[in-house]
């Protein structure tokens, strides 16, 4: 066996009427990875998560979560899974602390003798210790989001499934959640992170899968995916012709010229400093020279389309 998989699906399909919300996807989430799950609104991410957690039944296909079959052995897997699905949800008329006590009491595998302790440490971990006695209807969206994370952390978990965990959080909260995810990942917990925020995914994730219209259009190491897009050299100069000639002699061709800016695709390992020296020697007046690394966003847009309109 090559690598342990925390989540593995094959041919996973969910049909609503005649529409396939999820169309035969095969996810492979390595154990210990921080796995980014990307896709536009309506691409089937949440439906997939619902099937992974046994909330919805798959029309076709198989799911293995932490090595157990879903939905057959759902109750074996779930106690090891912490989840935040489609936003937090709590009883507004109860305090944050009582909400956590309630959910933990519902878990038939949780130990009631350590319940209070675990709830307190979960509240501490998300910075809600002081607001624990406030009723949830008085919470801001960010506080509810934190409480949702606390709920996912009530017990030691092997995997966390987090759907938009920083939704509604202020910049400080976003940073804290990011740090929290990093520290959890350092503990060896697999993180399955669904998000629209590409910057967040880029900062946190080792692996990604991109969904579009119910299908996985790309999956793998984030570096590999990013490197599928070319690195570009950007050069601004008033001596455009001379510069293009010099670049050609350095083996860099296919220059696109726009005003005083030259753009060309180059090897990511290009030595910009020595190229610059060469240009200067040829008396090209260089106003700006830099490499533009390929971004995940570029790849993402290429995979999922430019359009703002929801696909379906």
């Amino acid at each position, binding site marked *: 066996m090559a690598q342990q998989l925390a989540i593995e699906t094959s041919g996973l399909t969910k049909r609503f009427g005649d529409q396939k919300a999820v169309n035969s996807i095969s996810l492979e989430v390595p154990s210990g990875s921080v796995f980014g799950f990307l896709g536009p609104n309506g691409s089937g991410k949440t439906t997939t998560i619902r099937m992974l957690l046994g909330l919805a039944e798959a029309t076709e296909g198989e799911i293995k979560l932490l090595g157990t079959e879903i939905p057959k052995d759902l109750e074996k897997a779930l106690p090891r899974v912490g989840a935040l699905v*489609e936003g937090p*949800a709590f009883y507004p008329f*109860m305090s944050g602390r009582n909400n956590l006590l309630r959910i933990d009491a519902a878990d038939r595998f949780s130990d009631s003798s350590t319940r209070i302790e675990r709830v307190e440490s979960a509240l501490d971990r998300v910075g809600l210790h002081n607001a624990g006695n406030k009723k949830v209807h008085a919470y801001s969206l960010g506080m509810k989001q934190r409480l949702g994370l606390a709920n996912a952390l009530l017990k030691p978990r092997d995997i966390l499934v987090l759907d938009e965990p920083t939704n509604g959080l202020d910049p400080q909260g976003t940073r804290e959640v990011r740090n929290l995810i990093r520290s959890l990942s350092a503990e060896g917990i697999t993180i399955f992170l669904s998000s629209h925020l590409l910057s967040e995914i880029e900062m946190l994730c080792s692996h990604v899968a991109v969904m579009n219209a119910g299908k996985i259009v790309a999956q793998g190491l984030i570096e590999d995916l990013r490197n599928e897009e070319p690195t570009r050299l950007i050069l601004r100069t008033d001596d455009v012709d001379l510069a293009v000639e010099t670049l050609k002699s350095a083996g860099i061709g296919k220059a696109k010229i726009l005003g005083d800016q030259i753009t060309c695709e180059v090897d990511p390992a290009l030595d910009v400093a020595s190229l610059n020296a060469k240009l200067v020697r040829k008396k090209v007046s260089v106003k700006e020279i830099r490499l533009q690394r390929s971004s995940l966003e570029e790849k993402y847009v290429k995979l999922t389309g430019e359009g703002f309109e929801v696909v379906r």
Partner: protein
Amino acid sequence: MFAKALGIRLFLSELKVMFTRRRTWAMLAAIALIPILLAVAVALSSERLAPGEGPPFLAQVTQNGLFTGFTAMLLALPLFLPLTVSVVAGDTIAGEAGLGTLRYLLISPVGRVRLLVMKYLASLVFILAGTFTLMIAGAAIGAILFPVGPVTLLSGFTISIFEAFGRMALVALYTTVSLSGMAAVGLFISTLTTVPVGAMTATLVTSGVSNILGNIPQLEWMHSWLFTYYWLDFADLLRAPIEWGSMLNNIVLQLGWIAVFGALAYGRFTTKDILS
């Protein structure tokens, strides 16, 4: 370990959620108001009803305050108690789905069957609380406004005050049994939707329909199958000796409704995709 297997903690947590809600207390307060309004109205009016006029037992209220609870039960049974039952039973699953807490309960994991059973038992506890609230409030206001003494039963037999309290408790239990079938119907309806108000209304409609069907003589063949059929027969508990027949028939009938709608709720809820 034993408590865990039986789900006692989940049950207690269920009750905690229910009795943390102001709505629950408001409904109990409204139930308590029924005998209070009734007693105050009777006490303030100078007219004395002739025996047999007005609702049954009403004439006795002025002579013995302990009858207030029984009279109030007669007034509350057709509409008000079913209303509170439909609020609680209709909310069981749909309420959690509407809040979104259902998905977190299920992935905790609570176990779908276990949740369904606990929800039903908790709604029975509410009905019990409601019927006892009504009887206790009735006895209390009756004792304040009217003379209290040994109670003369429908059969002319007289029982002591203590025994009268026993009969009150029996009537409250009887009514709880009466409403248990309707609670099962509400539980099933609650698994059909994520809009709790819809489930509550639909549940209330079923008791209304049942009451109407029970009043159409041409449909007499079906009357004894309606869950409302024995509702007002708690008066049989006010005879000496007690006539247990209607109590037994009522229990059997309600168990039938619980079995059918419990099974439907089970079938629906255990296979349902939770998309809320």
